[in-house]
Protein backbone atom coordinates (compact mmCIF):
# COMPACT_ATOMS: atom_id res chain seq x y z
CA UNK A 1 0.00 0.00 0.00
CA UNK A 2 1.45 3.35 -0.95
CA UNK A 3 1.24 6.50 1.13
CA UNK A 4 1.37 9.17 -1.52
CA UNK A 5 1.12 12.82 -0.78
CA UNK A 6 -2.38 14.10 -1.56
CA UNK A 7 -2.64 17.37 -3.46
CA UNK A 8 -2.86 19.82 -0.56
CA UNK A 9 -4.93 22.44 -2.35
CA UNK A 10 -7.74 20.08 -3.24
CA UNK A 11 -10.57 18.86 -1.05
CA UNK A 12 -11.51 16.29 -3.67
CA UNK A 13 -9.92 13.12 -2.36
CA UNK A 14 -8.07 10.49 -4.27
CA UNK A 15 -10.87 7.96 -4.06
CA UNK A 16 -8.87 5.09 -5.49
CA UNK A 17 -6.59 4.65 -2.59
CA UNK A 18 -7.78 2.31 0.13
CA UNK A 19 -7.68 3.19 3.79
CA UNK A 20 -5.63 1.04 6.09
CA UNK A 21 -7.92 -0.88 8.46
CA UNK A 22 -6.65 -2.84 11.46
CA UNK A 23 -8.05 -4.35 14.66
CA UNK A 24 -7.64 -3.18 18.24
CA UNK A 25 -9.01 -6.16 20.12
CA UNK A 26 -12.36 -7.62 19.13
CA UNK A 27 -14.77 -4.73 18.64
CA UNK A 28 -12.54 -1.83 17.59
CA UNK A 29 -11.47 -1.16 14.00
CA UNK A 30 -8.93 1.56 13.21
CA UNK A 31 -9.33 3.25 9.83
CA UNK A 32 -6.23 5.19 8.77
CA UNK A 33 -6.46 7.52 5.79
CA UNK A 34 -3.76 7.26 3.18
CA UNK A 35 -1.92 10.44 2.29
CA UNK A 36 -0.77 13.55 4.02
CA UNK A 37 -1.41 14.85 7.50
CA UNK A 38 -3.42 17.78 6.24
CA UNK A 39 -6.82 19.44 6.29
CA UNK A 40 -8.20 17.79 3.11
CA UNK A 41 -7.48 14.35 4.56
CA UNK A 42 -9.02 15.30 7.89
CA UNK A 43 -12.11 16.65 6.12
CA UNK A 44 -12.59 13.23 4.61
CA UNK A 45 -12.24 11.64 8.06
CA UNK A 46 -14.96 14.01 9.31
CA UNK A 47 -17.16 12.95 6.39
CA UNK A 48 -16.56 9.28 7.16
CA UNK A 49 -17.35 9.92 10.82
CA UNK A 50 -20.62 11.60 9.82
CA UNK A 51 -21.55 8.71 7.51
CA UNK A 52 -20.93 6.09 10.18
CA UNK A 53 -22.41 7.74 13.26
CA UNK A 54 -25.99 6.68 12.54
CA UNK A 55 -25.21 3.02 11.83
CA UNK A 56 -26.98 0.87 14.42
CA UNK A 57 -24.17 -1.67 14.84
CA UNK A 58 -21.69 1.04 15.87
CA UNK A 59 -21.33 1.94 19.56
CA UNK A 60 -18.75 4.67 19.36
CA UNK A 61 -16.67 6.63 16.86
CA UNK A 62 -13.40 8.26 17.87
CA UNK A 63 -11.86 10.57 15.28
CA UNK A 64 -8.09 10.89 15.49
CA UNK A 65 -5.46 12.58 13.36
CA UNK A 66 -6.39 11.52 9.80
CA UNK A 67 -7.83 8.33 11.27
CA UNK A 68 -11.01 7.04 12.87
CA UNK A 69 -11.55 4.36 15.50
CA UNK A 70 -14.87 2.57 15.07
CA UNK A 71 -16.10 0.58 18.07
CA UNK A 72 -18.88 -1.89 17.34
CA UNK A 73 -21.58 -2.88 19.83
CA UNK A 74 -20.72 -6.55 19.41
CA UNK A 75 -17.78 -8.64 18.34
CA UNK A 76 -18.49 -9.39 14.69
CA UNK A 77 -18.79 -12.92 13.39
CA UNK A 78 -17.02 -12.01 10.17
CA UNK A 79 -14.54 -9.18 10.69
CA UNK A 80 -13.67 -9.30 6.97
CA UNK A 81 -17.21 -8.16 6.16
CA UNK A 82 -16.83 -5.23 8.58
CA UNK A 83 -13.53 -4.24 7.00
CA UNK A 84 -15.13 -4.44 3.57
CA UNK A 85 -18.10 -2.28 4.63
CA UNK A 86 -15.82 0.31 6.25
CA UNK A 87 -13.62 0.39 3.16
CA UNK A 88 -16.74 1.03 1.07
CA UNK A 89 -17.73 3.94 3.33
CA UNK A 90 -14.22 5.33 3.05
CA UNK A 91 -14.39 5.08 -0.74
CA UNK A 92 -17.67 7.00 -0.72
CA UNK A 93 -16.58 9.63 1.81
CA UNK A 94 -16.04 13.08 0.33
CA UNK A 95 -14.46 15.87 2.28
CA UNK A 96 -16.80 17.99 4.37
CA UNK A 97 -15.80 21.14 6.13
CA UNK A 98 -17.29 21.29 9.59
CA UNK A 99 -18.87 24.61 10.45
CA UNK A 100 -16.99 24.95 13.67
CA UNK A 101 -16.94 27.76 16.16
CA UNK A 102 -14.25 30.38 16.38
CA UNK A 103 -12.37 30.20 19.66
CA UNK A 104 -9.92 32.84 20.81
CA UNK A 105 -7.55 31.89 23.60
CA UNK A 106 -5.70 34.55 25.57
CA UNK A 107 -2.11 33.48 26.19
CA UNK A 108 0.75 34.61 28.36
CA UNK A 109 3.76 33.74 26.23
CA UNK A 110 7.07 33.16 28.01
CA UNK A 111 7.32 33.30 31.77
CA UNK A 112 7.21 30.46 34.26
CA UNK A 113 5.13 28.11 32.10
CA UNK A 114 7.33 28.42 29.02
CA UNK A 115 10.09 26.10 30.11
CA UNK A 116 10.71 24.76 26.64
CA UNK A 117 10.83 28.08 24.79
CA UNK A 118 14.66 28.35 24.93
CA UNK A 119 15.02 24.85 23.50
CA UNK A 120 12.60 25.71 20.69
CA UNK A 121 14.65 28.82 19.90
CA UNK A 122 17.78 26.66 19.74
CA UNK A 123 16.08 24.12 17.52
CA UNK A 124 14.51 26.64 15.14
CA UNK A 125 17.29 29.22 15.12
CA UNK A 126 14.63 31.86 15.78
CA UNK A 127 14.49 34.42 18.57
CA UNK A 128 11.88 33.97 21.31
CA UNK A 129 9.95 36.95 19.92
CA UNK A 130 9.83 35.37 16.48
CA UNK A 131 8.66 32.02 17.88
CA UNK A 132 5.88 33.74 19.81
CA UNK A 133 4.85 35.87 16.84
CA UNK A 134 4.72 32.87 14.50
CA UNK A 135 2.65 30.92 17.03
CA UNK A 136 0.04 33.61 17.71
CA UNK A 137 -0.26 34.67 14.08
CA UNK A 138 -1.30 31.17 13.08
CA UNK A 139 -4.87 30.03 12.46
CA UNK A 140 -5.51 26.54 13.76
CA UNK A 141 -8.16 23.90 13.27
CA UNK A 142 -9.23 21.40 15.90
CA UNK A 143 -8.63 18.09 14.11
CA UNK A 144 -9.74 15.86 16.95
CA UNK A 145 -10.10 15.66 20.73
CA UNK A 146 -8.38 13.04 22.81
CA UNK A 147 -5.68 12.02 25.24
CA UNK A 148 -7.24 13.97 28.12
CA UNK A 149 -10.76 15.33 28.71
CA UNK A 150 -11.38 18.15 26.25
CA UNK A 151 -7.85 18.26 24.84
CA UNK A 152 -7.91 19.48 21.24
CA UNK A 153 -5.20 18.52 18.79
CA UNK A 154 -4.66 21.69 16.74
CA UNK A 155 -3.43 21.55 13.18
CA UNK A 156 -1.87 24.43 11.30
CA UNK A 157 1.37 25.00 13.17
CA UNK A 158 3.99 26.81 11.07
CA UNK A 159 6.71 24.28 10.12
CA UNK A 160 9.38 26.72 11.37
CA UNK A 161 8.29 26.02 14.94
CA UNK A 162 7.64 22.29 14.76
CA UNK A 163 9.37 20.55 17.64
CA UNK A 164 9.47 16.81 18.39
CA UNK A 165 7.84 15.50 21.56
CA UNK A 166 10.22 14.91 24.44
CA UNK A 167 11.62 11.43 24.89
CA UNK A 168 11.31 11.93 28.66
CA UNK A 169 8.05 13.74 29.52
CA UNK A 170 7.92 16.63 31.98
CA UNK A 171 6.38 15.22 35.15
CA UNK A 172 4.27 18.13 36.33
CA UNK A 173 3.30 20.33 33.45
CA UNK A 174 0.53 22.72 34.51
CA UNK A 175 -2.98 22.68 33.15
CA UNK A 176 -3.24 25.58 30.72
CA UNK A 177 0.28 25.20 29.35
CA UNK A 178 0.35 26.14 25.67
CA UNK A 179 2.35 23.40 24.04
CA UNK A 180 3.87 22.13 20.81
CA UNK A 181 4.07 18.41 20.03
CA UNK A 182 5.68 17.70 16.67
CA UNK A 183 3.60 19.48 14.04
CA UNK A 184 0.67 20.07 16.41
CA UNK A 185 -0.14 22.56 19.12
CA UNK A 186 -2.62 22.49 22.00
CA UNK A 187 -3.46 23.64 25.51
CA UNK A 188 -2.85 21.14 28.33
CA UNK A 189 -6.12 20.33 30.14
CA UNK A 190 -4.71 18.43 33.13
CA UNK A 191 -1.69 19.01 35.33
CA UNK A 192 0.61 16.03 35.04
CA UNK A 193 3.15 14.23 32.89
CA UNK A 194 3.34 15.74 29.42
CA UNK A 195 5.70 15.11 26.53
CA UNK A 196 4.86 18.28 24.63
CA UNK A 197 6.93 21.49 24.73
CA UNK A 198 5.57 24.43 26.68
CA UNK A 199 5.86 27.99 25.40
CA UNK A 200 3.11 29.82 27.31
CA UNK A 201 0.04 29.66 29.48
CA UNK A 202 -3.73 30.10 29.00
CA UNK A 203 -6.33 30.50 31.75
CA UNK A 204 -9.23 29.12 29.71
CA UNK A 205 -10.79 26.00 31.22
CA UNK A 206 -11.23 23.52 28.37
CA UNK A 207 -13.47 20.98 30.11
CA UNK A 208 -16.37 20.91 32.58
CA UNK A 209 -17.65 17.40 33.34
CA UNK A 210 -20.98 18.75 34.66
CA UNK A 211 -21.79 20.83 31.57
CA UNK A 212 -24.23 19.62 28.92
CA UNK A 213 -21.37 19.91 26.43
CA UNK A 214 -18.33 19.19 28.62
CA UNK A 215 -15.65 20.06 26.06
CA UNK A 216 -15.09 23.65 24.92
CA UNK A 217 -13.52 22.54 21.64
CA UNK A 218 -15.00 20.35 18.93
CA UNK A 219 -13.50 19.00 15.72
CA UNK A 220 -13.63 21.64 13.01
CA UNK A 221 -13.41 24.61 15.36
CA UNK A 222 -11.02 27.39 14.42
CA UNK A 223 -8.62 28.49 17.16
CA UNK A 224 -6.58 31.65 17.43
CA UNK A 225 -4.19 32.57 20.21
CA UNK A 226 -4.22 36.17 21.37
CA UNK A 227 -1.01 37.30 23.08
CA UNK A 228 -2.29 38.84 26.30
CA UNK A 229 1.15 39.16 27.82
CA UNK A 230 4.60 38.39 26.54
CA UNK A 231 7.18 37.78 29.26
CA UNK A 232 10.52 37.32 27.60
Amino acid at each position, binding site marked *: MSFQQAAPASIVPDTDELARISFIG*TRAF*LIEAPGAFDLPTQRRIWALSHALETRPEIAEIVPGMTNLLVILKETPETPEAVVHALQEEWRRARGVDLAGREIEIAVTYGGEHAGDLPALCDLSGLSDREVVRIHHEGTYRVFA*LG*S*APGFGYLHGLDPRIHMPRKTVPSLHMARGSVTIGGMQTGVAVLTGPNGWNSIGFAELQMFDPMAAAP*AVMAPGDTVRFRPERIEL
Partner: protein
Amino acid sequence: MIEIVATGPLNTVQDLGRPGYRNIGVTASGAMDPLALRIGNVLLGNAPGAAGIEVQTFPFQVRFSEGGAFAITGADCRATLDGVPLPPWWTAGAAPGQMLELFPPLKDARAYLCLAGGVAVAPVMGSRSTSLRGGFGGLQGRVLATGDHVATDRAADGFLPKGGFGVVPPAVALKDAFPVAEGGALLIRALPAGEHDLFGADAQRFWSQLWKISARSDRTGYRLSGDPIHPTEVMEMRSHGVVPGVIQVPPAGEPIVQMSDANTAGGYPKIAGVIEADLWRLGQARIGSLLRFVPATHAEARAAEQALAAYIADVHKTARLVRQALAGMA
Protein backbone atom coordinates in the same frame (compact mmCIF):
# COMPACT_ATOMS: atom_id res chain seq x y z
CA MET B 1 -25.35 3.56 54.09
CA ILE B 2 -21.86 2.40 55.10
CA GLU B 3 -18.98 4.17 56.73
CA ILE B 4 -15.39 3.53 55.65
CA VAL B 5 -13.49 2.60 58.80
CA ALA B 6 -10.17 1.68 57.15
CA THR B 7 -8.99 1.73 53.56
CA GLY B 8 -5.84 1.47 51.49
CA PRO B 9 -4.97 4.32 49.16
CA LEU B 10 -6.49 3.30 45.80
CA ASN B 11 -10.03 2.10 46.37
CA THR B 12 -12.76 3.73 44.32
CA VAL B 13 -16.41 3.64 43.33
CA GLN B 14 -16.75 1.94 39.93
CA ASP B 15 -19.52 0.70 37.69
CA LEU B 16 -19.29 -0.71 34.17
CA GLY B 17 -17.72 2.49 32.92
CA ARG B 18 -18.35 5.59 30.89
CA PRO B 19 -17.99 4.59 27.24
CA GLY B 20 -19.10 7.00 24.55
CA TYR B 21 -16.97 10.01 25.46
CA ARG B 22 -13.61 8.95 24.07
CA ASN B 23 -14.26 11.37 21.21
CA ILE B 24 -13.86 14.23 23.71
CA GLY B 25 -10.90 12.64 25.44
CA VAL B 26 -12.76 11.05 28.35
CA THR B 27 -11.52 7.66 29.52
CA ALA B 28 -14.19 4.99 29.98
CA SER B 29 -12.94 3.94 33.47
CA GLY B 30 -15.09 1.24 35.14
CA ALA B 31 -14.28 -1.90 37.11
CA MET B 32 -11.03 -3.70 36.25
CA ASP B 33 -12.94 -6.96 36.68
CA PRO B 34 -16.36 -6.08 35.27
CA LEU B 35 -17.50 -9.70 35.54
CA ALA B 36 -17.04 -9.70 39.33
CA LEU B 37 -18.93 -6.40 39.66
CA ARG B 38 -21.72 -7.70 37.45
CA ILE B 39 -22.10 -10.91 39.45
CA GLY B 40 -22.13 -8.97 42.73
CA ASN B 41 -25.01 -6.90 41.38
CA VAL B 42 -26.85 -9.96 40.06
CA LEU B 43 -26.62 -11.61 43.49
CA LEU B 44 -28.24 -8.55 45.03
CA GLY B 45 -30.91 -8.09 42.39
CA ASN B 46 -29.34 -4.74 41.43
CA ALA B 47 -29.23 -3.39 37.90
CA PRO B 48 -26.17 -4.89 36.17
CA GLY B 49 -24.60 -1.46 35.85
CA ALA B 50 -25.05 -0.45 39.52
CA ALA B 51 -21.94 1.02 41.14
CA GLY B 52 -19.90 -0.86 43.70
CA ILE B 53 -16.59 -0.41 45.46
CA GLU B 54 -13.42 -1.71 43.83
CA VAL B 55 -10.97 -2.71 46.56
CA GLN B 56 -7.39 -3.12 45.38
CA THR B 57 -5.54 -2.11 48.54
CA PHE B 58 -6.14 -3.81 51.86
CA PRO B 59 -7.21 -4.07 54.58
CA PHE B 60 -10.54 -2.49 53.87
CA GLN B 61 -13.09 -2.15 56.61
CA VAL B 62 -16.63 -0.76 56.60
CA ARG B 63 -19.37 -0.38 59.18
CA PHE B 64 -23.00 -0.74 58.14
CA SER B 65 -24.68 2.34 59.61
CA GLU B 66 -27.95 0.87 58.39
CA GLY B 67 -28.65 -2.79 57.80
CA GLY B 68 -28.68 -4.15 54.28
CA ALA B 69 -27.59 -6.84 51.88
CA PHE B 70 -24.14 -6.81 50.33
CA ALA B 71 -22.09 -9.04 48.05
CA ILE B 72 -18.37 -9.78 47.92
CA THR B 73 -16.93 -10.94 44.58
CA GLY B 74 -13.63 -10.92 42.72
CA ALA B 75 -10.41 -11.77 44.55
CA ASP B 76 -10.92 -13.98 47.61
CA CYS B 77 -10.16 -11.41 50.30
CA ARG B 78 -11.03 -13.68 53.27
CA ALA B 79 -13.85 -11.34 54.26
CA THR B 80 -15.31 -11.38 57.75
CA LEU B 81 -18.56 -9.95 59.09
CA ASP B 82 -18.08 -9.09 62.76
CA GLY B 83 -15.16 -11.51 62.70
CA VAL B 84 -17.13 -14.42 61.20
CA PRO B 85 -15.56 -15.62 57.93
CA LEU B 86 -17.61 -15.31 54.72
CA PRO B 87 -16.98 -17.48 51.67
CA PRO B 88 -15.83 -15.71 48.49
CA TRP B 89 -18.42 -14.81 45.82
CA TRP B 90 -21.05 -14.51 48.52
CA THR B 91 -24.02 -12.36 49.38
CA ALA B 92 -25.30 -11.87 52.91
CA GLY B 93 -27.20 -9.40 55.04
CA ALA B 94 -25.65 -7.06 57.56
CA ALA B 95 -27.40 -5.71 60.63
CA PRO B 96 -26.94 -2.06 61.64
CA GLY B 97 -23.53 -1.58 63.26
CA GLN B 98 -21.95 -4.72 61.85
CA MET B 99 -18.39 -4.51 60.59
CA LEU B 100 -17.23 -6.00 57.31
CA GLU B 101 -13.50 -6.51 56.84
CA LEU B 102 -11.57 -7.46 53.68
CA PHE B 103 -8.01 -8.77 53.95
CA PRO B 104 -5.22 -8.98 51.35
CA PRO B 105 -6.09 -11.76 48.90
CA LEU B 106 -3.63 -14.62 48.50
CA LYS B 107 -4.25 -14.68 44.77
CA ASP B 108 -5.91 -12.30 42.32
CA ALA B 109 -5.80 -8.56 42.74
CA ARG B 110 -9.18 -6.89 43.21
CA ALA B 111 -12.27 -7.51 45.31
CA TYR B 112 -15.66 -5.91 44.75
CA LEU B 113 -18.08 -4.85 47.44
CA CYS B 114 -21.57 -4.39 46.05
CA LEU B 115 -24.43 -3.04 48.14
CA ALA B 116 -28.15 -3.64 47.71
CA GLY B 117 -29.46 -0.75 45.61
CA GLY B 118 -25.99 0.18 44.39
CA VAL B 119 -23.71 3.00 45.53
CA ALA B 120 -25.63 6.27 45.30
CA VAL B 121 -23.42 8.94 43.82
CA ALA B 122 -24.49 11.32 41.08
CA PRO B 123 -23.76 9.95 37.61
CA VAL B 124 -21.36 12.11 35.59
CA MET B 125 -21.66 11.67 31.83
CA GLY B 126 -23.83 8.63 32.36
CA SER B 127 -21.63 6.76 34.82
CA ARG B 128 -20.83 6.59 38.53
CA SER B 129 -17.27 5.40 37.90
CA THR B 130 -14.48 7.40 39.46
CA SER B 131 -12.14 9.06 36.97
CA LEU B 132 -9.11 9.84 39.11
CA ARG B 133 -7.24 11.52 36.30
CA GLY B 134 -10.19 13.72 35.41
CA GLY B 135 -11.12 14.28 39.06
CA PHE B 136 -14.83 13.53 38.55
CA GLY B 137 -17.29 10.68 39.03
CA GLY B 138 -17.54 8.34 42.00
CA LEU B 139 -17.22 10.00 45.38
CA GLN B 140 -16.15 13.56 44.49
CA GLY B 141 -13.78 12.27 41.83
CA ARG B 142 -11.38 10.83 44.37
CA VAL B 143 -10.33 7.64 46.16
CA LEU B 144 -12.25 6.53 49.23
CA ALA B 145 -10.93 7.74 52.58
CA THR B 146 -11.43 6.74 56.19
CA GLY B 147 -14.57 8.42 57.54
CA ASP B 148 -16.35 8.57 54.17
CA HIS B 149 -20.04 7.73 54.21
CA VAL B 150 -21.27 5.84 51.18
CA ALA B 151 -25.02 5.96 50.55
CA THR B 152 -27.02 3.45 48.55
CA ASP B 153 -30.01 3.74 46.28
CA ARG B 154 -33.28 1.98 47.12
CA ALA B 155 -32.82 -1.78 46.97
CA ALA B 156 -35.01 -4.16 45.02
CA ASP B 157 -37.37 -6.17 47.23
CA GLY B 158 -35.88 -9.54 47.80
CA PHE B 159 -35.53 -12.25 50.34
CA LEU B 160 -32.07 -13.06 51.58
CA PRO B 161 -31.60 -16.29 53.55
CA LYS B 162 -29.90 -16.08 56.92
CA GLY B 163 -26.20 -16.68 56.32
CA GLY B 164 -26.58 -15.70 52.69
CA PHE B 165 -25.66 -17.69 49.59
CA GLY B 166 -22.97 -17.73 46.94
CA VAL B 167 -22.00 -18.75 43.43
CA VAL B 168 -19.25 -20.83 41.91
CA PRO B 169 -16.51 -18.33 40.95
CA PRO B 170 -16.08 -17.87 37.18
CA ALA B 171 -12.47 -19.08 37.29
CA VAL B 172 -13.87 -22.46 38.38
CA ALA B 173 -17.19 -22.49 36.51
CA LEU B 174 -15.59 -21.33 33.25
CA LYS B 175 -12.30 -23.18 33.38
CA ASP B 176 -13.06 -24.93 30.08
CA ALA B 177 -13.77 -21.69 28.24
CA PHE B 178 -10.60 -19.93 29.35
CA PRO B 179 -7.09 -21.21 28.66
CA VAL B 180 -5.57 -22.89 31.66
CA ALA B 181 -2.39 -21.41 33.07
CA GLU B 182 0.69 -23.43 32.29
CA GLY B 183 3.39 -23.37 34.96
CA GLY B 184 1.61 -20.53 36.76
CA ALA B 185 1.49 -18.12 33.82
CA LEU B 186 -1.80 -16.52 32.83
CA LEU B 187 -2.74 -17.09 29.19
CA ILE B 188 -4.31 -14.02 27.63
CA ARG B 189 -5.78 -14.15 24.14
CA ALA B 190 -5.13 -11.27 21.77
CA LEU B 191 -5.61 -10.30 18.13
CA PRO B 192 -2.68 -8.92 16.12
CA ALA B 193 -2.99 -5.12 15.81
CA GLY B 194 -1.98 -2.56 13.18
CA GLU B 195 1.81 -2.63 13.53
CA HIS B 196 2.17 -6.33 14.40
CA ASP B 197 3.95 -7.23 11.17
CA LEU B 198 6.39 -4.32 11.49
CA PHE B 199 7.98 -6.20 14.37
CA GLY B 200 9.28 -8.89 12.01
CA ALA B 201 10.94 -11.71 13.92
CA ASP B 202 10.34 -9.85 17.20
CA ALA B 203 6.58 -10.44 16.75
CA GLN B 204 7.18 -14.13 17.34
CA ARG B 205 9.12 -13.31 20.51
CA PHE B 206 6.17 -11.21 21.67
CA TRP B 207 3.89 -14.25 21.54
CA SER B 208 6.36 -16.85 22.76
CA GLN B 209 7.88 -15.25 25.84
CA LEU B 210 6.56 -14.90 29.35
CA TRP B 211 5.99 -11.28 30.36
CA LYS B 212 6.06 -10.10 33.94
CA ILE B 213 3.65 -7.43 35.17
CA SER B 214 5.96 -4.73 36.52
CA ALA B 215 5.45 -2.68 39.66
CA ARG B 216 4.74 0.33 37.44
CA SER B 217 1.26 -0.98 36.70
CA ASP B 218 -2.10 0.37 37.74
CA ARG B 219 -5.67 0.88 36.52
CA THR B 220 -4.36 2.93 33.60
CA GLY B 221 -2.12 0.21 32.25
CA TYR B 222 0.22 -2.66 32.91
CA ARG B 223 3.87 -2.21 31.99
CA LEU B 224 5.34 -5.57 31.15
CA SER B 225 8.95 -6.56 31.67
CA GLY B 226 10.75 -9.07 29.55
CA ASP B 227 13.05 -9.33 26.58
CA PRO B 228 12.43 -6.07 24.65
CA ILE B 229 10.92 -6.18 21.17
CA HIS B 230 11.40 -3.55 18.48
CA PRO B 231 9.82 -2.78 15.12
CA THR B 232 12.15 -3.22 12.16
CA GLU B 233 11.59 0.38 11.12
CA VAL B 234 10.77 3.51 13.07
CA MET B 235 7.38 4.77 12.02
CA GLU B 236 5.98 8.24 12.68
CA MET B 237 2.53 7.47 14.04
CA ARG B 238 -0.41 9.86 14.07
CA SER B 239 -2.45 9.91 17.29
CA HIS B 240 -5.50 7.66 17.11
CA GLY B 241 -8.21 6.38 19.44
CA VAL B 242 -7.46 3.32 21.56
CA VAL B 243 -9.48 1.01 23.80
CA PRO B 244 -8.53 -1.01 26.91
CA GLY B 245 -6.58 -4.12 25.97
CA VAL B 246 -4.44 -2.41 23.36
CA ILE B 247 -0.81 -3.55 23.68
CA GLN B 248 1.53 -0.75 22.68
CA VAL B 249 5.30 -0.93 22.42
CA PRO B 250 7.14 2.25 23.41
CA PRO B 251 10.71 2.82 22.14
CA ALA B 252 12.31 0.93 25.04
CA GLY B 253 10.63 -2.24 23.73
CA GLU B 254 8.68 -3.37 26.77
CA PRO B 255 4.94 -3.51 26.03
CA ILE B 256 2.20 -1.62 27.87
CA VAL B 257 -1.34 -3.03 28.07
CA GLN B 258 -3.88 -0.27 28.53
CA MET B 259 -6.50 -1.11 31.16
CA SER B 260 -9.76 0.45 32.46
CA ASP B 261 -8.37 3.96 32.87
CA ALA B 262 -6.76 3.71 29.41
CA ASN B 263 -5.79 6.89 27.70
CA THR B 264 -8.27 7.63 24.91
CA ALA B 265 -5.56 8.21 22.32
CA GLY B 266 -2.21 6.70 21.55
CA GLY B 267 0.61 6.88 19.10
CA TYR B 268 3.00 4.07 19.96
CA PRO B 269 3.17 1.08 17.60
CA LYS B 270 0.60 -1.47 18.72
CA ILE B 271 1.39 -5.12 18.35
CA ALA B 272 -1.86 -6.68 19.57
CA GLY B 273 -5.18 -6.14 21.34
CA VAL B 274 -6.48 -8.35 24.16
CA ILE B 275 -9.89 -9.87 23.47
CA GLU B 276 -12.54 -8.20 25.59
CA ALA B 277 -13.63 -11.48 27.20
CA ASP B 278 -10.16 -11.90 28.73
CA LEU B 279 -9.86 -8.38 30.17
CA TRP B 280 -11.48 -9.34 33.50
CA ARG B 281 -8.80 -12.00 33.98
CA LEU B 282 -6.08 -9.49 33.20
CA GLY B 283 -7.79 -7.12 35.65
CA GLN B 284 -7.23 -9.74 38.36
CA ALA B 285 -3.55 -10.32 37.48
CA ARG B 286 -1.15 -9.21 40.17
CA ILE B 287 1.99 -7.15 39.95
CA GLY B 288 4.91 -9.57 39.61
CA SER B 289 2.84 -12.31 37.99
CA LEU B 290 3.63 -13.83 34.61
CA LEU B 291 1.53 -13.94 31.49
CA ARG B 292 1.80 -15.11 27.94
CA PHE B 293 -0.23 -13.84 25.00
CA VAL B 294 -1.98 -16.34 22.77
CA PRO B 295 -3.02 -15.36 19.24
CA ALA B 296 -6.79 -15.59 18.83
CA THR B 297 -9.48 -15.01 16.24
CA HIS B 298 -12.78 -13.14 16.37
CA ALA B 299 -14.55 -16.53 16.39
CA GLU B 300 -12.63 -17.64 19.49
CA ALA B 301 -13.36 -14.29 21.14
CA ARG B 302 -17.07 -14.74 20.43
CA ALA B 303 -17.02 -18.23 21.92
CA ALA B 304 -15.42 -16.85 25.10
CA GLU B 305 -18.01 -14.04 25.25
CA GLN B 306 -20.82 -16.55 24.87
CA ALA B 307 -19.43 -18.64 27.73
CA LEU B 308 -19.35 -15.51 29.92
CA ALA B 309 -22.90 -14.55 28.94
CA ALA B 310 -24.15 -18.06 29.71
CA TYR B 311 -22.46 -17.97 33.13
CA ILE B 312 -24.02 -14.59 33.96
CA ALA B 313 -27.46 -15.76 32.78
CA ASP B 314 -27.11 -18.92 34.87
CA VAL B 315 -26.18 -16.99 38.02
CA HIS B 316 -29.09 -14.64 37.36
CA LYS B 317 -31.56 -17.50 37.08
CA THR B 318 -30.16 -19.46 40.02
CA ALA B 319 -30.07 -16.43 42.32
CA ARG B 320 -33.72 -15.76 41.56
CA LEU B 321 -34.70 -19.38 42.16
CA VAL B 322 -32.78 -19.55 45.43
CA ARG B 323 -34.53 -16.44 46.67
CA GLN B 324 -37.96 -17.75 45.65
CA ALA B 325 -37.40 -21.21 47.15
CA LEU B 326 -36.08 -19.88 50.43
CA ALA B 327 -38.80 -17.26 50.65
CA GLY B 328 -41.33 -20.08 50.21
CA MET B 329 -39.77 -22.07 53.01
CA ALA B 330 -39.57 -19.11 55.35
